[in-house]
């Protein structure tokens, strides 16, 4: 299936959507296609919003963000995210804010079909007070006070992987993040892959998602750039540093997006 067709069929205005990939395999090409199709009012879920959500937020695709770390890793701020929270530009952005452990567990509960997950942590922090999806429970066995996080209920998960086979089974390897949980916590799953092979070969540290939990597979080589696909590409650290300047002011950001995303063709990722 082509990426534009997969996004058109599976991502609707108002959906709760997660584009996952923790520091690796971030599905940039799919995010760019969502921008090109002008989706609105999305609830964006992602542990580390990274540049891709800075772009979606700055282009006005989102009304709500669920996240746990909103920085440009090793560089500094995500300027479009900050502008939305600090100045409501281009639109107000409601935020639901977790710690990494909390949001990871919200994915786990969603994947397991449970209403909530239990963890230590949060207790004593202001996050626990402000996030309506964090509460406390008492352990029925020991009486210990623990934190509860509400399960994620996603309309659609979008991930990038190294390979799929002709049947549509998907394999990713290297740092595997929270992608399995995102796919299993979602009603629909769209996967972009570097390549389609006849048969998947077993590899160490690999995650396989069977074809019957995947809605659409699209071949998009380089679809994670400027993130990377282990074994296929390396992280474009220079672009992460350059983004700081590109995204710093509104006009410069819009001009860059117009040239490199809005008017670019499918699968071309700046």
């Amino acid at each position, binding site marked *: 299936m082509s990426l534009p067709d997969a996004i058109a069929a599976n991502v609707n205005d108002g959906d709760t959507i997660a584009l996952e990939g*923790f*520091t*690796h395999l971030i599905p940039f090409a799919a995010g760019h296609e969502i921008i090109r199709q002008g989706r609105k009012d999305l609830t964006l879920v992602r*542990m*580390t919003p990274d540049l891709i959500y800075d772009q979606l937020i700055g282009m006005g695709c989102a009304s709500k963000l669920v*996240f*746990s*770390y*909103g*920085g440009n*890793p*090793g560089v500094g*701020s*995500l300027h479009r*995210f*900050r502008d939305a*929270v*600090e100045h409501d530009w281009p639109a107000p952005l409601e935020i639901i*804010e*977790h*710690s*990494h*452990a909390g949001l*990871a*567990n919200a*994915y*786990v509960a969603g994947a397991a079909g449970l209403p909530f997950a239990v*963890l*230590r*942590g*949060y*207790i*004593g*922090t*202001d*996050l626990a007070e*402000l996030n309506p999806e964090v509460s406390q429970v008492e352990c029925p066995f020991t009486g210990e006070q623990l934190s509860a996080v509400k399960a994620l209920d996603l309309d659609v998960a979008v991930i990038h992987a190294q390979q799929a086979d002709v049947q549509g089974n998907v394999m990713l390897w*290297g*740092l*595997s*993040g*929270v992608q*399995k*949980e995102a796919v299993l916590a979602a009603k629909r799953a769209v996967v972009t892959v570097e390549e389609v092979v006849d048969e998947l070969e077993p590899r160490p*540290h690999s*995650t396989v998602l069977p074809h019957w939990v995947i809605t659409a597979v699209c071949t998009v080589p380089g679809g994670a750039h400027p*993130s*990377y696909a*282990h074994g296929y590409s*390396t*992280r*474009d*650290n*220079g*672009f*992460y540093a350059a983004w700081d300047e590109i995204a710093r002011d509104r006009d410069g950001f819009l001009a860059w997006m117009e040239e490199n995303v809005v008017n670019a063709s499918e699968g071309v990722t700046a």
Partner: protein
Amino acid sequence: MSENGYDAQELMTINAARELRDGLVCLVGVGPPNAAANLARRTHAPNTVLVYESGAIGAKPRRLPLSIGDDDLAETADELVSVPEMFNYWVGGGRIDVGFLGAAQIDRKGNINTTVIGDYGSPKVRLPGAGGAPEIAARAREVIVLVRHSVRVFVEKIDFITSIGPAGAPIVVITDLGVLRPGADGELELTAVHAGVEADQVREATGWDLHVADDLQHTPPPSDEELETLRALRASAERAPGPA
């Protein structure tokens, strides 16, 4: 750059590396903590186990990783785990000896803010947020905080509690002026100053009435070996692959 030829960041990184005793399991974040842990592994603590929250356990990076998701970490790790496993079994399960934290604001109890400056609902500055910090602060056996010393950072009351100070657990705060540790009352006090720094200078850069330990120490200046190793590490990061 000081007269002795090292800058504030190098001074903090080297003092952080010295805190790592050999063989500890160390959760490493991006930036100076990453440099400190890799410096320790290349100098006095070769058996330091590096854990990156991206899922790499026992990584032995050949160059200084520029991000916690660097493919070199994945290739050299003893084990790779998913993010939920990392936080539930390894951090939450209490298997981390030392965790590093940064701070936009810190108070005398070691509570840390990395979320907002100003009011949460209409912040003056929106910061990145929590990441792994709350669990690291709560579950690591020791916490090392690396932060520049100023009255904007060391404040009487922080604007937002992102991570709570580790009640009773060891915490050390390393700044460009000196080193703070909890005193008998649990509040951070100045236990050491770096070469050329006076205690009054540190008190002036602190937003509360900072107590100075009776036996105030002086940290030894960075050695040639420490500086050379750190600079070689940094140069290795700049040589890392990836289009510029």
